[in-house]
């Protein structure tokens, strides 16, 4: 592949990130997607839209989120300094709200009153239900039956916010199946319904739009690094399921070649076990959910069931921009197993008093690895994409406790 000078030039007008992305959807959705792309294009350069989005991020979400020096954890490791971008402090407890606020404003501008969404861990569902409550929009959230079982608190939160949660019992009953079902709803009700996709996957313009709304994370972090530390970090890292928090952090740093970029995928019970969700580390280029990207599937192209202790990473595809960054060599993607993520969860809780989401704990684990390899004056910036309150039942159950 040719050396890329400007990563902000992607995707092209049809949503292609090099060989990846695009719009692999049924004919019925082509025109509605084109309409969405045009509306988003117009709004994203409309000063009034931008001002409202930024005001909501500040006053409703609580942005900017701080960068916190995890001094005690760093000292215990004895290597590089670990810095945490505290997306867990956002309203609703994760980065997901950045995107749902943006898309709900697009939906309102397009005159759509009914919102649908898919959710895995429930964070995106909660963030969608939240903005719908605030803007008075109807909200239907599709969620795999398996995920409903392991994320009961988030299911109840969505209901408290007035959303209808629809259990999905097809396929593996997880995030990918929730996405299929949401797509089926959308194709049926496309005239009055807006589909808020929760990650940087799906057909064009979703990977670009969701990235743009989350890119505030990296823009803030880059400015905060320069202001607080007088320089950019040496390495940045984030967990990658669909990849929205990761692309949110990475995007502002893509044109800074001195900044190393590492994504942490869910290696589940280990890459060799076959029971994982590491699409980039162990998958191959295919087509899933409307875009060309790395997928986990068998020789016949059937999508394989994934495994991760964290529902939010339990997805057999990945956003096409990550596939592109991997092939371009701009970012590397490594697997972090369940056990290592859980150890990182406990270590961060004990040393810094922070309960990280299990998803984010994968990034913390990778930051701990990186810190151990680097000198004390090196800076590792880790996206702490969500808080762990929703996971305490899962963690307790693994330790044989029932709460």
């Amino acid at each position, binding site marked *: 592949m040719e050396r890329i000078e400007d990563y902000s030039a992607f995707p092209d007008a*049809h949503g292609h990130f090099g060989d990846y992305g*695009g*719009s*692999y*959807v*049924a*004919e*019925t*959705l*082509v*025109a*509605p997607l084109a309409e969405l792309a045009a509306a988003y294009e117009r709004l994203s350069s409309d000063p009034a839209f931008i001002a409202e989005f930024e005001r909501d991020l500040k006053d409703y979400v609580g942005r900017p989120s701080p960068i916190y020096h995890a001094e005690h954890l760093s000292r215990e490791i004895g290597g590089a300094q670990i810095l945490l971008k505290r997306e867990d402090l956002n309203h609703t407890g994760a980065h997901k709200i950045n995107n749902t606020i943006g898309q709900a404003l697009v939906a309102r501008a397009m005159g759509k009153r009914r919102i649908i969404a898919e959710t895995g861990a429930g964070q995106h569902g909660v963030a969608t239900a939240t903005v719908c409550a605030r803007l008075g929009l109807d909200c239907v959230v599709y969620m795999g039956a398996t995920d409903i079982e392991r994320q009961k608190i988030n299911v109840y939160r969505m209901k408290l916010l007035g959303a209808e949660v629809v259990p999905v019992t*097809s*396929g593996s009953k997880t995030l*990918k*199946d929730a996405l*299929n079902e949401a*797509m*089926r709803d959308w*194709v*049926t009700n*496309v*005239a009055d319904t807006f589909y808020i996709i929760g990650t940087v996957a799906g057909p064009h313009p979703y990977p670009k739009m969701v990235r743009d709304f989350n890119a505030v994370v990296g823009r803030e972090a880059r400015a905060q690094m320069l202001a607080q530390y007088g320089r950019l970090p040496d390495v940045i890292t984030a967990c990658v399921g669909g990849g929205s928090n990761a692309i949110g952090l990475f995007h502002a740093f893509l044109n800074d070649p001195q900044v190393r970029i590492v994504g942490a995928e869910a290696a589940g019970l280990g890459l060799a076990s076959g029971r994982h969700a590491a699409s980039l580390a162990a998958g*191959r*280029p*295919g*087509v*899933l*959910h*409307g875009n*060309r990207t790395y*997928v986990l*599937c068998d*020789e*016949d*192209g*059937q*999508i394989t069931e994934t495994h991760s202790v964290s529902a939010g990473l339990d997805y057999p595809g990945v956003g096409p921009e990550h596939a592109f960054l991997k092939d371009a060599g701009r970012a590397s993607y490594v697997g972090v197993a369940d056990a290592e993520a859980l150890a990182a969860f406990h270590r961060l809780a004990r040393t810094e008093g922070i309960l990280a989401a299990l998803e984010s704990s994968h990034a913390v684990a990778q930051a701990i690895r990186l810190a151990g390899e680097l000198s004390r004056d090196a800076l590792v910036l880790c996206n702490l994409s969500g808080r762990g309150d929703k996971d305490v039942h899962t963690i307790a159950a693994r330790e044989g406790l029932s709460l």
Partner: protein
Amino acid sequence: MSRPELTITSPGQRRIEARFAALKAARRTGLVPFITAGDPLPQAQVALMHALVAAGADLIELGVPFSDPMADGPVIQHASERAIARGTGLDEVFGWVREFRRKDATTPVVLMGYMNPVAIRGTARFAADAADAGVDGVLLVDCPIEETAAAAPLGEAGLARILLAAPTTPPERLARIVRAAEGFLYHVAFAGITGADRVRIDDVREHVEAIRRHGDIPVAVGFGVRDAASAARIGAFADAVVIGSALVERLVGATDEMDLCQRARDFLAPVRAALESAEGVGRSGSGS
């Protein structure tokens, strides 16, 4: 593997064209049953295909099972899940078509499926294997004309690229689709998933008339054709009707090959009869 003779003669497209030309000459409406390959009885797949033809099928749409069929309703989703669970992959599908071709050299077979199984096999290898087995056309549900580059090897292997038109397709785009279509155009009767019951005949007729203004490609209407009555109403103005979920549902639970073929005949025969009696109604002046 190079197949220059196929590249030049495009037998797949020719077999489909010949079939629609014969239907037109006889002023008959084509009947296109859809079945999910490998469901419900993989061992009786080829017998089922022959039974469909015997009961009046003019073209067979064979669904390639996929784990994540986003455009399909529960009936075809479950059929796909059963087929995959019983080991139906592309090798099996090609094998069944090859065996079907030994006794039937004229009925066109179109594979209908999703992009990922094709992309993972490699589109060029998929296309060569399909053409070699005797497949005539391929309909990739999630590959619209914008992504034609991804499907180019299909044409190179001599397969007809069957395209979809939908109620949401705007006029200028419809013109492009009609120009690019090969074999026939599959018109989706309503915005929704397969097997739903949302069809409004007047809307469908209007859409089919709009397609005809852009060119004379044969138009098959699918989604929402459930029985003899709905087939006859749509067959009055379409060149062919596709009937899928209702048939797949009828075949579920067949105990053996004889039962399966009997169910197929019992389901299809009244549909065929209804199409015969409704022949040509409303089709005059449509140019077909």
